[in-house]
């Protein structure tokens, strides 16, 4: 008797919770906080500073979404997730979205029942090697010892690349990026391979960065982007269009400095006015108010500003825009029209 009552209560709880989970936006508004899954620490992308505030390129996406939805860019609860726990944290509802340099692959999208809402960084796997070795191309790496993080897609890409080019290599398996730095500097391996953003960040920490070169070859595609779980398209739309708003803002010259002002005055460009909420009712369609995109852009700046602030060429990470430039500048960043 008691047990059946208990099970019944659980079922009811489960049903109500299930119904509630369908409307992620309402949950977030009721909670007053956005739960955003980030890495436990990756240079430039997400890291807690001395005051415990999270900073970084991925973190900025979370803040933009919080600003759009909750009108407060600080209303974010950052949940550190590891490579192993990230997808379950999302699937179980522990976090509302992941902004955690996650590569968009078919398996992760389809089989793990996630919804990638866009790409905020086009990455690719590269190689770093001491200049003294005189290697200028990855094709010359036959017989090299390679430091490689185990259990990642980079490990598989590496094997593919060497096999395709009919070369041999000796892997030195390591667990974390920090360990890789130590091993590489100690000479345990000739080459270190990981995502090229990671290589740049790692090289920036060396005493003599100019003694090391990053080879020109990029051997894989690593499109990194934020994702939400299957089952609530409305919520996925909000995250997707917040990211698109940041990219469109750069294209249209909206920055954190001028966006508020332009939103007051309006502009003579219809699309910009639609982003700013001066014309049309795009915000209403998303279930938000008119000023959602203004707040998202004002939170940290447009895509270009965020890039420059966290990982751009003036930061120690020092990444060039490259593939991540706007399509008008020869890059791949291309937001669908706001219409």
């Amino acid at each position: 008797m008691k047990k059946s009552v208990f099970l019944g209560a659980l079922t009811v709880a489960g049903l109500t919770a299930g119904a509630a989970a369908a409307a992620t936006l309402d949950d977030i508004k009721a909670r007053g906080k956005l739960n955003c899954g980030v890495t436990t620490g990756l240079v430039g992308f997400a890291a807690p500073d001395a005051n415990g505030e999270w900073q970084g390129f991925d973190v900025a996406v979370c803040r933009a979404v919080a600003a759009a939805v909750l009108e407060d860019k600080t209303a974010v609860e950052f949940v550190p997730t590891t490579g192993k726990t990230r997808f379950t944290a999302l699937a179980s509802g522990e976090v509302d979205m992941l902004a955690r340099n996650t590569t968009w692959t078919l398996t992760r999208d389809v089989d793990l029942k996630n919804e990638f809402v866009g790409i905020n960084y086009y990455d690719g796997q590269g190689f770093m090697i001491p200049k003294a070795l005189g290697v200028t191309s990855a094709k010359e790496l036959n017989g090299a010892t390679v430091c490689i993080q185990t259990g990642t897609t980079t490990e598989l890409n590496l094997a593919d690349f060497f096999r395709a080019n009919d070369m041999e290599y000796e892997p030195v398996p390591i667990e974390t990026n920090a360990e890789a730095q130590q091993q590489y500097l100690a000479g345990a391996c000739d080459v270190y391979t990981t995502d090229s953003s990671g290589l740049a960040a790692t090289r920036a920490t060396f005493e003599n960065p100019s003694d090391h070169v990053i080879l020109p070859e990029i051997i894989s595609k690593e499109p990194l982007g934020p994702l939400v779980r299957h089952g609530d398209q409305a919520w996925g739309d909000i995250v997707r269009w917040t990211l698109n708003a940041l990219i469109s803002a750069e294209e249209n010259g909206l920055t954190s400095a001028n966006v508020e002002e332009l939103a007051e005055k309006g502009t003579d460009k219809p699309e910009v006015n639609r982003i700013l909420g001066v014309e049309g009712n795009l915000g209403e369609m998303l279930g938000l108010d008119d000023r959602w995109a203004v707040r998202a852009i004002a939170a940290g700046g447009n895509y270009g500003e965020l890039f420059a602030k966290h990982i751009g060429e003036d930061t120690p990470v020092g990444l060039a825009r490259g593939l991540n430039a706007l399509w008008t500048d020869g890059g791949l960043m291309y937001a669908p029209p706001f219409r």
Partner: protein
Amino acid sequence: MTQKAFVRTEMLPEQDPPPTEAGIVGWIRENLFSGWLNTLLTLLAIGVIYYVLSGLLPWIFQSVWNAGSLDECREIMKATWGETHGHACWAVIKDRWLQLLYGFYPPYPVYPDANFGEAPVGHWLPAYFRPNLALVLLFAALAPVLFDRVPRKMLVFTAIYPFVMPWLMWGGSVWTPVGIAAGFAILFAVIRYGQVAMGFLLAVIVGVLAALLWWGLIMGYVTAGLDQIVPIAIPSVESREFGGFMLAILIGVVAIGLSLPIGIVLALGRRSDLLIIKSLSVGFIELIRGVPLITLLFVASVLLNYFMPPGTDFDIIMRVMIMVTVFASAYTAEVIRGGLAALPKGQYEGADSLGLDYWQAQRLIIMPQALKISIPGIVSTFIGVFKDTTLVSIIGLLDPIGLSQGIRANQEWNGIYWELFAFIALLFFVTCFGMSRYSMWLERKLQKGH
């Protein structure tokens, strides 16, 4: 012929032993240079020690304390010593020691946005008052358990502490811990006074049911009502903000504190003659001991989320604590069973012949001896559990190891490695060494009649 015999009539004064046999010189000769092999080994050992220390001491002491980033550290090293190798950059510890100790726990929970550096105006409590007070009270609560000179009345405080500590750490209404404590009071009262009427076993069952009823259904309304009438609350702190060495201590203390009583019960259960109790105990112990802790942590972090209805917010730290406690209990139970098995049969028979019942025999005769035998094993288990708490970094909790990764992910400190681990190692060493010393002291004190 007269024979002359020499007979000494007075004692010669005592003489000092030859200088080569006494004092420091003698000790050195006897212990370090007593033969060619030992001489050789001594010289070799001195060489190794010199080699290690000549690298380590300059690294530790010729180091940089004031810098804002690793690059600045390196510049200072270059300016001071001409090279960067062999010098530690302790500036990272100076910059982040609070984070390594407390994680993101707000220094002034009343003002969640305040930093450590600038105390909010009008705030009179020192920073991190609550976790620090919880730690001080922990020692006060442990004192009567650890040292028999402390007055027994302090045990009352030990009983209260498990309810005070979570309230201090997590905050919230004072009535929640009071309500939970009331549940235990109900349990205790039913067993104590119902025993006569219902018999022991029935009293336990009724007591447990009554307590569950209270916690599950009634308590919520009562505490809510009391909140309305007498609202006493302190600002609450989210589990997510817990971290650093504080988190390690918190998980460690809870696991250690709970695993001893649970372990004793399990050990007794495993030696029990009652089939169900015995098989339940054996099953539990073997199942938990047969699974690596990291697996249990993944169950806590990942699998439980799937079992529970979506949206249920079952605190992750609570889940981890339960798992670590369960793990520690299984090991402690086996250590204590070892102690029970080592007792001669005569002790059990002696207890029986005095007419003591089961619990009296356990309390007065068996357990004091069995626990004494198992002290080294128990403490060793505890030290192991405490160090195992660092595994939680793998499921994304920011214990010191997890935080070191986060700190390294800052541009200023990326590339720093040994300094962080050295600091964390020091924290753990001090704690574990303390536990080990206590256990040795306890063993010596309890040694009887040898």
